[in-house]
């Protein structure tokens, strides 16, 4: 039984616990947990404000273990992955990470994730959802082995302006030399550790991959190392705020796995999601390529964009209109946030052509609960460039120490 497997049978406790679960329980003040990819994980430890500001102004520890991980290895592992995802992975050097999306035949996104090139013929694919079925069917005709290794690897995200300092102090000598999307192999007090300079906050940060048996000790040592740098454990809510500021997309929020949509027209292509920069039409055939070429030729019918919304009320789930009278519906908000760092009311929204050009003015239909009285407000919005927040420090190598 893997160490993360709880002792209660799955029909009594359907959710798994990560190796950090005991620590999470200790630190959780309000017992606010949410399921994530089959694990019981922390939504909020203390207050979401405290946790959010730690991301931007100090450092944070986030349990990343539930992220679904596959080991992809074999003679044609590269060819397999390159046919799977839209980016050209032939350019991905050993020791580097790539953010990728992959599509179905219609060119609609199935999932996004990261590919780690651990060796010439060995990769790790991190995904939001489990999809062995799709991966194995995609492997027909390739000499490649695919296995889920989620429970074999515990993972922590250390993110925030002081994260590099904390990791150095924890014992990761030379971690400051890691560039964005680079992988480093370390050993700290006899415990092997893989570190990638990746993250979901849009800030300076790292992700640590370790053996489950080492997980608790590493957590404790990191917390000790970070005491003077404001390190705190955070839950998913705070992370979600940061990722909206960074303009990152969340599966099942900003798009759905096209293979799991029931209704026609709910699939989204990378072009529609503004991820055209991830689509490399010049590489050999990949899933959805022909559909994407056709879409590029005909022009996308919709686009996911950033919105700057008037006022300070987040435009959660708002429908968007072309004019204030609210007659012509042109899209809807997928993620919304009052950004504490930018002091702007921001949103991600999917818009129909031709309303998605930067600078376009739209109107968001926002419903406000004001002491149990609902009010409706048409808020003026403007289509803006993403990301909303991208501090220089996220790329600085070496990063600052404080």
């Amino acid at each position: 039984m893997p160490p993360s497997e709880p002792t209660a049978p799955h029909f009594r406790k359907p959710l798994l616990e990560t190796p950090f679960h005991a620590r999470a329980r200790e630190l959780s003040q309000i017992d606010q947990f949410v399921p994530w990819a089959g694990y019981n994980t922390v939504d909020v430890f203390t207050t979401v404000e405290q946790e959010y500001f730690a991301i931007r102004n100090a450092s944070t520890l986030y349990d990343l273990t539930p992220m679904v991980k596959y080991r992809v290895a074999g003679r044609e592992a590269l060819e397999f992955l390159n046919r799977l995802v839209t980016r050209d992975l032939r350019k991905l050097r050993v020791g580097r990470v790539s953010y990728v999306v992959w599509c179905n035949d219609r060119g609609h996104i199935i999932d996004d994730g990261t590919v780690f090139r651990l060796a010439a013929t060995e990769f790790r694919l991190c995904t939001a959802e489990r999809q062995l079925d799709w991966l194995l069917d995609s492997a027909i005709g390739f000499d490649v082995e695919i296995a889920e290794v989620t429970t074999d690897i515990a993972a922590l995200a250390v993110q925030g302006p002081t994260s590099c300092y904390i990791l150095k102090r924890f014992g990761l000598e030379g971690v400051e030399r890691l560039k964005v999307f680079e992988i480093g192999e370390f050993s700290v007090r006899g415990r092997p550790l893989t570190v990638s300079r990746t993250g979901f906050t849009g800030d300076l940060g790292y992700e640590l991959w370790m053996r489950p048996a080492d997980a608790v000790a590493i957590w404790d040592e990191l917390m000790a190392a970070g005491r003077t740098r404001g390190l705190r454990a955070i839950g998913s809510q705070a992370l979600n705020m940061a990722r909206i500021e960074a303009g990152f997309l969340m599966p099942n929020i900003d798009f759905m796995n096209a293979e799991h949509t029931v209704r026609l027209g709910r699939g989204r292509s990378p072009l529609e999601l503004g991820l055209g920069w991830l689509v490399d039409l010049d590489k050999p055939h990949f899933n959805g390529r022909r559909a994407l070429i056709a879409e590029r030729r005909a022009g996308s019918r919709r686009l996911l964009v950033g919105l700057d919304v008037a006022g300070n009320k987040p435009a959660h789930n708002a429908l968007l209109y072309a004019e204030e009278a609210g007659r012509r519906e042109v899209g809807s908000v997928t993620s919304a946030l009052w950004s504490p760092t930018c002091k702007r009311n921001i949103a991600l929204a999917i818009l129909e052509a031709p309303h998605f050009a930067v600078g376009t003015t739209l109107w968001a239909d926002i419903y406000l609960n004001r002491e149990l009285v609902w009010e409706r407000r048409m808020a003026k919005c403007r289509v803006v460039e993403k990301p909303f927040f991208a501090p220089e420090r996220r790329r600085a190598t070496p990063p600052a120490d404080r």
Partner: protein
Amino acid sequence: MSATAGTRRYDCIIVGAGHNGLACASYLARAGRSVLVLEANERVGGAAITREFAPGYRVSAGAHLLNQLPRALSAELALGEHGLEFAAQELPTTAIASDGAPPLPLGAAGDAPLSALSPRDAAAYPAFRARLGRFAKVLYPLLDSIPPRLGTSDWGDRLALVKLGWRIRTLGRRDMRELLRVIGMNAYDLLSDEFETPRLKGALGVDAVLGTNFGPRAPGTVLTLLNRLAAESAAGPMPLAQPKGGLGALSDALARVATAAGASIRTGARVASIRVVDDRVAGVTLESGEAIDAARVISSADAKTTFLKLLGPRHLDTGFVRRVDHIRSAGLAAKLHLALDRLPTFPGLDRARLGGRLLIAPSLDYIERAWNHSKYGGYSPAPMLEVTVPTVNDPSLAPTGRHVLSAIVQYVPYETRNGWAADRAPCLEGLLALLDAHAPGLGASVTAAELRTPADLAHEFGMSGGHWHHGELAFDQFYMVRPVPGAAQYATPLAGLYLCGASCHPGGGVMGLAGRNAARAVLRGAA
């Protein structure tokens, strides 16, 4: 065969010189395309070949009768002028028995033997044949056309659907209702509703399940029956024919047509892969390593072989590959070839009927039980047989005075639980015993015997699963979804690659329509 090698670039390369490949080549060459046909074997014909299976004894190694070749197609291609001759035409079909019962002729109305068995059946039979005949005529144009796509905004597709609906309406309300009812039925029920004579029902049931992986109780077997009858309706009122020299003679004639039209044919040239440049077909590479360029490649190999082996999944999308991978193509029809030192005697059978098509399928339950074994990895100890003695009409196939028996044996699985190494001998022994029971003394007259399991046929003819139709013929693999959505109009997701074999609409049987429809699709795509 002519071997025009060269480094020139062709408009079209056709993979496989089976009858569909050759028909397609002929139409394309006639339309002015430069065409090269590549055949892996040393001879053209694919599964329509005549082969020596014992010294001096030759047999049609795959299909052994011609019943579905549309007259229009053979006239268009002038097969007669190119050497196709018939040893016999308008062959009769007879259901034979081992229990001493007289043979039961099928076909002509009001046959005395049927009247003797059941006046009711004898009375019902002509009306039944006529009704199915009307259905078949209405359905035939379906076989002879490129299936439409659904849900597109293409008016051609919509028109095709409307025409199909209209054609069915022309049957009149009564027939239309009946067609829409029976088309989803199983043969067992349809025949049991109409008739009471087990052997009549069994014999009629053969046409519903021959070449399929279904027993007569399986819904959809009326569809396969109608598909066959539709094809036969265009082949003539009594469509069963035996080419002189075996089915290979048809292929030879088709090859002459193609060559005369300007196509080149190379035999012994096995295509190893289809080459792709810039996401479109560039040509093929032979097993020898030789590369030949072409703007279009039209594969008469089955869909699985074409997409998964010759092209390779990496040029296709996962969803499409998944569909191809799911094509059901396990064959259940084996071939039995016997060399006989004398003419077999089936009691009560005159020479004319002996030269026809003989069926061993005493009842629908018999067929259904024969199928049962194959579901669990066994061969049928009491199989259904379609038997011919081609030397009755064509003595050239055997040494003087000697004879050949060719039979389609159903149900024999691609692989058995025990493996064919262990099962081959007992299976063959059982077959000989069964035949001997129908033609006493036949067993003793056998000088050589060859049992070709679906695995053998798969190997010989390069068809995955050894399925006659290059994939099961059933509603879920029929017409607009045959072989898979995305390749049902002969064109494939890869620009320049087409299919023209039996895995396409309208399926197997020596019909040539898949080849002709594919040629139309190629020419349409080029226009």
